């Protein structure tokens, strides 16, 4: 039987914008992946616990609140703490390039997809990394 890519898309912190994450969710679904959506305003602890229970291959973080430098490192730290560092972490939203570089270099994020990203780039990236 075939192995299916499972993705947990989440909205940490105080951020009410979910249009983008839902569009990404649809694109991944249409690419044949199983997408689980967290809903808005989740704590980092709860998100990591949910990602572990769902045993996803990918944790996708959407942030448009400006709190990315606080929340994303916290989430990746928790993943390491709970022995789930093999989960592929990607992020998207309004994250300036300088911050994005730090998140990728120092905080275990595989790739940041900023505004204007074509959804097929995300699909291709995941398909390639999870081959």
């Amino acid at each position, binding site marked *: 039987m075939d192995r299916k890519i499972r993705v947990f898309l989440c909205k940490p912190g105080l951020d009410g914008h979910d249009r983008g994450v839902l569009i990404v969710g649809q694109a991944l679904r249409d690419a044949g992946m199983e*997408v689980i959506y*967290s809903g808005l305003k989740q704590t980092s602890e709860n998100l990591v*616990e949910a990602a572990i229970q769902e045993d996803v291959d990918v944790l996708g973080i959407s942030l448009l609140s400006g709190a990315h430098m606080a929340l994303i490192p916290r989430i990746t730290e928790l993943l390491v703490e709970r022995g789930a560092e093999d989960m592929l972490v990607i992020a998207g939203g309004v994250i300036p390039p300088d911050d994005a570089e730090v998140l990728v270099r120092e905080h275990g994020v595989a790739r940041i997809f900023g505004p204007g990203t074509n959804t097929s780039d995300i699909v291709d990236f995941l398909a390639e990394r999870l081959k």
Partner: protein
Amino acid sequence: MRDAPKDLYERVLKGDRRAAARLITMVENGDRDAREVLRMLHSRTGRAHIVGLTGSPGSGKSTLACRLAQGYRAAGKTVGVICVDPTSPFTGGALLGDRVRMQELAGDPEVFIRSMGSRGALGGLSVATNDVINILDAFGKDLVIVETVGAGQVEIEIVKYAHTCCVVTMPGAGDEIQAIKAGILEIGDVFVVNKADREGAQRTLADLEMMLETRPGGPGDWKPPVVATVALEGEGVDELERAIERHSAHLLESGMMAEKTEQRMKAELLGILDLMVSREAGRALEEGEGKELVRRMAERQIDPHSAAEEVVKYLLKRAGN
């Protein structure tokens, strides 16, 4: 990263959530090692009460599941929740959104929630759902709530696997003709009219009660109650909990539980046999004699029913050797 079956088994029994989650994924993917772990876990199952929640899309099953789980947690019980959502038959993808309605449960380590795509199975569950029920049972959950795909009239697989099957409906979901169609009315042990603060709730309640009155006496003479809830506000949920408990007690007192358990085992076995036999038959048709049989069918030398009998005979003979 591969986990050895024995190791996974021990970690699941120890309550390791990561191990249980990984095992569920393996089961969903049809992994051979998972079967080995399930084999070992079988003797540890049979303690959990399994509650099915089925009903039309949008009737509030996820919110109800959340409220129910909260209620049982308040009573000190541990809870597993399985949410099945439809997989697209075209792309194989799925958007599993039930967690969105269960946010109040997040952060409670004694609640284990798993979202599943139906992955091509009809009937409102996925092929692996029953295995996942067993995993959560062995994992030590007192209660396992299974929320089916938004179901209407034929998605009634859940009745084979749940001890107590709750059918959820809402006001304005359809007239009484919808309610007397075969299937959905026959499988409920408890009926729920959710969103009961909406217009027409009294009518829906009355309709259901009337339909149930004329339903042929169920096994063990259980009269299914109709409960009105407003899940979002938590109204009526305690009454639903009590109804489920009464049904559970009824199963035990009337001796129906043993029968129900046997029914579950039988359904489980048939499900596995289905897969096993069709896989073997599929293989047989790729080989010499099988291939020949298909060719003869194409040339109208043998009809499909006789050909199927030939295949069964062949499989039995081969199994005997």
